[in-house]
């Protein structure tokens, strides 16, 4: 029986995952949901790279012969030429002192470098597909994972189910975030099979959890220096890692999935946007992602030499309106007054305006917040006794003022400035307060009037992730005073509901309550933007997740 139909007591774990560039992003690994309709906004680029499940064994192949199969084929104006061998160079924004994939969020980087791999991966269409695993059979609360034949570590040792089990155990031990996995039991009937029993209840997101980058499989016996040279299964192996600095990797001659095209990979540690841009223009790097608006402008002017890839992520920016500090009428007026389209117009390519937390064409996205309506916003305030005097709403002689808290990342501060201007024009005096990091400040001490935040709101086509992240009373992002018993009950009901139509109806009901409270104002939806030099390909640039990067088929740009 399919687990989704038996979703009696499913629990998804909200996994807070650090973005490559900072600490403040939440994403949820949840699965088995509705397949995500993904809008690909490929500006111009080369193409798909789902890891093929061709089994090629672990022969010690040598040298730089041409890449096997599926090399980059042309997109709209993609290059037909591909290069063989060479060193692929890119940049890494975040500096860190270790590359032990089980620690912190280091796996987000090591996986991008082609060093570590996991049992499953998320493909371009946000589906969970096998990687090191052949597949998974889920029966009630028991998941049976079969490993692929012929998978081996870079030292030639085969990957056994026992080793996978020990990796899970080490991850639980090293990372506090995976504590919940310690409640499960793991059995290895043979070398290729791992049986996971998820306690006494069904755990529908098991496959997704196994696709998290942190669950990288290492050779725990052969690795001596976990912090600097973990032995893993990826197409590249560590050549030199400088803590807080650059990392150089070389080809894994024992790669289990065919020959590796590039001789090596280098990721320079570089956090400055200007430097990245200039390094790309100087031809010092082949590709990088998370590019800025001005980079998009510059590179799109030169399509002969650069290919830009832009994929919408389900990452959204939004504002929380603190119900303890702002009266209902003010919150409603703010929600009605903000013009999201004009905010997005300043950041073309980076983001687009969004109505609510989910796409409107999703079954659970039928309910959306009210559209912008300045007149209505004015009426709401006037009904509450505010009067427009000298362009500012005042009540009892006090002008209406608000403070917008924000931080400087991914144009959040730009959004704040634009919001401030719109509010001032509307008649609400707004100030801006910039903090270094939201999680240590307003997200935890709740001391704000309006604050900006961003996170992935819809990961795999099911709103449960968002409910657990921000709607439930106990959730981390329930900071605007929305959480209430009634909604919690609906969410609990949603958890046990199997029928897709009923689920959609419930989800819309929950979101209706959420939007009605006017505690959250959804602003924009981000794109993942990457740029590649002509000839360079295989940077997972069409994947909406930044923790995928180079692979065996990656090619270097033409100088």
């Amino acid at each position, binding site marked *: 029986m399919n687990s989704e139909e038996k979703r009696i007591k499913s629990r998804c774990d909200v*996994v807070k995952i650090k973005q490559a560039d900072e600490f403040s992003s939440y994403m949820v690994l949840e699965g088995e949901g509705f397949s995500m309709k993904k809008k690909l906004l490929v500006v111009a680029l080369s193409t798909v790279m789902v890891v093929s499940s061709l089994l090629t064994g672990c022969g010690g192949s040598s040298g730089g012969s041409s890449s096997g199969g599926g090399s980059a084929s042309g997109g709209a104006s993609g290059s037909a030429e591909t290069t063989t061998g060479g060193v692929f160079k890119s940049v890494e924004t975040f*500096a860190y002192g*270790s590359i032990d994939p089980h620690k*912190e969020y280091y796996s987000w980087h090591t996986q991008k470098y082609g060093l570590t791999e996991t049992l499953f991966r998320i493909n371009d269409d946000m589906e969970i597909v096998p990687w090191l695993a052949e597949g998974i059979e889920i029966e009630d609360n028991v998941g049976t994972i079969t490993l692929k034949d012929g998978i081996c570590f870079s030292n030639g040792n085969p990957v056994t189910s026992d080793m996978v089990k020990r990796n899970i155990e080490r991850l639980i031990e090293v990372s*506090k*975030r995976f504590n919940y996995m310690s409640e499960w039991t793991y059995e290895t009937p043979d070398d290729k099979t791992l049986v996971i029993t998820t306690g006494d209840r069904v755990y529908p997101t098991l496959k997704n959890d196994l696709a998290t980058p942190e669950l990288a499989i290492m050779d725990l016996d052969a690795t001596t220096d976990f912090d600097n040279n973990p032995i893993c299964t990826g197409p590249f192996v560590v050549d030199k890692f400088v803590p807080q600095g650059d990392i150089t990797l070389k080809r894994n001659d024992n790669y289990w999935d065919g020959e590796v095209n590039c001789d090596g990979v280098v990721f320079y540690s*570089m956090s400055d946007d200007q430097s990245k841009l200039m390094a790309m223009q100087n031809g010092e790097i082949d590709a990088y992602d998370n590019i800025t608006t001005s980079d998009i402008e510059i590179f799109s002017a030169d399509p002969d030499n650069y290919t830009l890839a832009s994929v919408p992520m389900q990452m959204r920016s939004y504002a929380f309106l603190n119900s303890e500090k702002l009266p209902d009428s003010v919150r409603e007026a703010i929600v009605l007054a903000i013009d999201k389209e004009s905010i997005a117009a300043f950041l073309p390519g980076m983001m687009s305006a969004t109505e609510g937390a989910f796409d409107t064409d999703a079954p659970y996205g039928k309910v959306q917040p009210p559209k912008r309506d300045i007149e209505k916003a004015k009426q709401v305030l006037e009904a509450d006794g505010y009067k427009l005097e000298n362009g500012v709403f005042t009540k009892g002689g006090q002008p209406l003022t608000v403070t917008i808290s924000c931080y400087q990342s991914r144009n959040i501060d730009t959004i704040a400035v634009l919001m401030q201007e719109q509010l001032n024009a509307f008649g609400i005096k707004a100030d801006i307060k910039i903090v270094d990091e939201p999680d*240590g400040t307003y*997200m935890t001490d709740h001391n704000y009037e309006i604050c900006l935040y961003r996170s992935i709101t819809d990961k795999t086509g099911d709103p449960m992730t968002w409910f657990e992240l921000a709607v439930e009373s106990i959730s*981390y992002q329930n900071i605007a005073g929305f959480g209430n018993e009634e909604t919690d009950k609906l969410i609990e009901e949603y958890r046990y509901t199997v029928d897709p139509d009923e689920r959609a109806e419930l989800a819309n009901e929950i979101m209706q309550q959420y939007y009605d409270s006017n505690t959250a104002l959804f602003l924009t939806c981000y794109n993942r933007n990457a740029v590649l030099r002509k000839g360079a390909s295989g940077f997972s640039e069409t994947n909406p997740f930044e923790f995928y990067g180079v692979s065996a088929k990656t090619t270097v740009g033409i100088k």
Partner: protein
Amino acid sequence: MLKYIIKRLINLIPVLIVLTLLVFLLMYLTPGDPALIRLSSQGANVTDELLAATRAEMGLDQSFFTRYFSWVGGILHGDFGMSYIDDMPIFPKLLDALMHTLALASASTVVSVMIAIPIGIFTAVKKDSIPDNIVRIFTFTGNAMPNFLIALLLMYLFCIRVRLFPVIAKGSVQGLMLPALSLSIPMISKFARQTRADVLQQLNEEYVIGMHARGVKERVILYKNVLHNALGSILTIISLQIRVLIGGSVVTEVIFRWPGVGSLIMDSIGGCDYPTVQGAVLILATLQILVNLATDISYCIIDKRIELE
């Protein structure tokens, strides 16, 4: 001489004690709970028990002085504590950053001295000539330039307009050139002005006039006597400039992504990594104190009279 140095070294002890106290107090007063920052950077689900446990683990539940003494005790053993961000020891990072900052500071000082002193002497000798006036305009402008303007200007000219320098050259000689140059420009301006003024003053002294009268060669007077006597004040300004450099290199390091102490401080402030900020500020201040000491000692070597004061 030795006595003087020992006396100065003993004087350092109370200064260092107050310094560490000050730096520690600064971070102690910082709003925000370090345990919360640490946990949120690890992505753990923050519960009250976990918070309490982390606070205990980090020693935050102890009194101010217990924490202060354990911090200072650690530093004496070369242990600056652990970073809040990645839980790695701070000391190796600091040392690496310090090496980069020192390399940058010494490169720009050497460049500046080599350019500025000849210019200063030349303009003093050829006072009010056309070259002197041109140099004066340049030094005056260089003196008033914000260091980010110089850095951005150099970057715009040599990295964007003419792509002379590679971007990825961190730590290498090539990568050192632009940041060193951008630090040198204001230094050259100050040095050249100071040298010119000092040499001019010496040239008006009685002994120079006397030597002229005795027919001693101009060049001999200039290099053997005038410059030697002017050295003291030139040294003062060099040491003052090094102080400015230690602090002022932050902006330059940030613009050119030079991985020095300044970049480290800015990155750490951004990530609320206060132990690293603490360590870095302490290191820079100690460096400054040592520079001051070295300056005083070299005065003493140049001019024995100071010892008497």
